């Protein structure tokens, strides 16, 4: 997850060109918008996928995120922070809305099975040199994430998968720094316990 980790550190460097792209978008430049979409689609899709554990839902949600970003682009100010953080914040709000909306009809077990198969398949096809054990671990991690409460899940995803720093997470989640830290810590410990119960020991 080097790219994601780096994304957090390079946020300041990226702020300027992305803010310019936003300006161009607001002036009606379609190419600038396309550039922004291409820059963030992968990250947003991953964020949605890690949270929902479901490819189709992640795809639909990603589309929804960019629709909302497109409509509310005028409300973005570079003083808010990096454009990426703002998009992440929009994504997070949509994810939570989606979670609340689908809480009742969610069938966690069947969802996990489908997701685990997808995960295994993807990992093994993308990295044929990687051992099957690594692909399997990825599937287990995703399963464990799905079992985590949404508050802790989003904190862990933003920190350890997206590589955001505490400040950015604080801005995205709109909670005090202490809460962010506490959620990340509890989320990690809980996740480790879930994995332990699953008999999985990542080392």
């Amino acid at each position, binding site marked *: *997850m080097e*790219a*994601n*980790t780096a994304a957090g550190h390079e946020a300041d460097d990226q702020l300027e060109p992305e803010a310019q792209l936003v300006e161009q978008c607001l002036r009606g430049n*379609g190419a600038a*918008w*396309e550039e922004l*979409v*291409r820059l963030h*689609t*992968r*990250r947003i*899709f*991953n964020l949605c*996928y890690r949270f929902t554990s479901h*490819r189709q839902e*992640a*795809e639909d949600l*990603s*589309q929804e995120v*960019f*629709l909302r970003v*497109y409509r509310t682009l005028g409300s973005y100010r570079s003083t808010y922070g990096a454009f990426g953080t703002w998009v992440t914040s929009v994504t997070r709000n949509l994810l939570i809305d989606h979670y609340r909306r689908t809480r009742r009809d969610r069938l966690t077990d069947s969802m996990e099975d489908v997701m685990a198969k997808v*995960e295994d398949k*993807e*990992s093994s096809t*993308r*990295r044929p040199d990687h051992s099957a054990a690594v692909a399997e*671990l*990825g599937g287990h*991690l995703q399963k464990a994430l799905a079992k985590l409460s949404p508050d802790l899940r989003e904190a*862990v995803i933003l920190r*350890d*998968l997206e*590589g955001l720093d505490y400040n950015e997470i604080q801005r995205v989640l709109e909670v005090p720094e202490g809460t962010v*830290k506490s959620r*990340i*810590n509890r989320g*990690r*410990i809980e*996740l*480790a316990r879930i*994995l*332990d119960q699953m008999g999985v*020991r*990542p*080392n």
Partner: protein
Amino acid sequence: MNWDCEQIEERLSDYLDGALPPKEAAGYKAHADGCARCTQLVASVRGLVGALRAMEPVAPPLRLVPTILDKTIGPRTEPFGWRAWFGWTRILWQPRFAFGALTILITGAVLSQALGIEWRTPTVADLNPVHIYRAADQGIHRIYARGAKFFGDLRVVYEIESRLNPAPDQEPDQQKPAPAPPSGPGRTEGPTSGPNNLNRAETSTKYVTRFACIVLTAPGRRMP
């Protein structure tokens, strides 16, 4: 500061992220190393964080970006992705192109057969102009010979048939049928031989008989 297990759990992320002051970190480590439960906890969470950070990003579906762009700035005229490379093949799916391709194939097959190219066991010699010329020459002569033969046969049938059924208004001694011309290429031009007044009293029955004779005799006399 004396650390207890609860504190170890509370500050675990700070410890792993290196956010603890050195002095506190030393105390933390001292407790964590000495307590079996905490040692296990620290090890498992450290392993977990490492595994999470090593997780590969999932590739989004290829259609995602185009779909987003379609839904926001509307459908675009410019092709992208694989469509940019293979988009032109769409015109080939029109029926006229398929029909044209089929015609070309059939023509090619007929031509190649006429030129004596054996597609099942193709050899470089097949493409030799000399070979193609010879094959074409041979093919043309064969077709010509067949035509000549057919015409010759036609005349033979005419003559036989007119002898068997002479015209009623003609004297038998007036009939001087020419001998059947030897069949072969170049020997059949012009109505130089044979009576030219034999078909005066033909009836439709005779036409049918004649045609049947031609059809029956022609295939059996093909050139080798």
